[in-house]
């Protein structure tokens, strides 16, 4: 069956939430190529906190080249031996990779019908994967849209308990230039999400 956009009705605000998760997933899963960098350079923001973050990101993108951002990404997340940051839930929650938080995530993924793409080597609790999962849960990418209480539970269990700290670290990271505003945007967006989930509860 073709997976068209009209497959599920998602409200405008939920659609936009999914896009923000998508943007974070895209920027954190790999360094942006020339095409994406060009798009990011053209972004403008309003004077909300999030809008100012986007504005800063566009400015940073205009000052960057794909090569420079690739090197920055490498230093931040991959590194020789290890990168400056380890963007995994398990590491932030236990100090080690591949621990219980990853096992718990895998259980939830099975239950939600999410499988990992074959060519991805990192554990599933990578921040980019988690953002992508949230986006998919909202739009119904993995079957059908998941209701707010279940989104909230996934968010609380796998994201809210560590990702804000990760985004703060990203903002403050020594190697971060282009990724500094990405950290700010992540931070602001997760805080908006937390507050909105509280409202819905």
């Amino acid at each position, binding site marked *: *069956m*073709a*997976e*068209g*956009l*009209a497959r599920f009705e998602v*409200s*405008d*605000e939920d*659609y*936009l*939430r999914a*896009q*923000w*998760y*998508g*943007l*974070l*997933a*895209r920027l954190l*899963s*790999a360094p942006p*190529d020339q*095409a*994406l960098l060009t*798009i*990011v350079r*053209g*972004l*403008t*923001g*309003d004077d*909300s*906190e*999030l*809008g100012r973050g*986007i504005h800063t990101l566009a400015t940073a993108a205009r000052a960057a080249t794909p090569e420079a951002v690739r090197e920055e990404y490498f230093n931040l997340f991959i590194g020789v031996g290890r990168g400056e940051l380890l963007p995994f839930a398990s590491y932030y929650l236990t100090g080690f990779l591949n621990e219980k938080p990853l096992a718990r995530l895998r259980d939830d*993924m099975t239950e939600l019908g*999410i*499988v*990992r*793409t074959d060519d*991805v080597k*990192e554990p*599933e609790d*990578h921040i*980019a*994967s988690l953002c*992508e*999962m949230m*986006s*998919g849960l909202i739009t119904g*990418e*993995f*079957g059908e849209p998941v209701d707010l209480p279940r989104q909230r539970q996934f968010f609380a269990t796998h994201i809210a308990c560590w990702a804000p700290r990760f985004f703060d670290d990203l903002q403050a990271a020594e190697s971060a230039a282009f990724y500094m505003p990405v950290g700010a945007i992540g931070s602001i967006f997760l805080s*908006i999400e937390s*507050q*909105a989930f509280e*409202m*819905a509860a």
Partner: protein
Amino acid sequence: MCQHSFGEFEEGVSEMSKKAAAKMGRRDFFRKAGLGAGAAGAAAAGLSATKGHASVPDKTAANNRGYRETEHVKKFYELAKF
């Protein structure tokens, strides 16, 4: 009996409007937070290039990706004024 039913009906209505109010509040909250404004290309960028760490088991989904993305980008621009 009638009274009781009426009471239930009233309760149903207030429950419904409470839900509607919560939904409106949430929508307003996101609007004020700037989820739509400033995201014009941002959302399109987020979608158009997602590499895909997680996916549905159904492999045919990947074949329709291009189509789906184009539709998403169009829908996004409609929402830019959210």
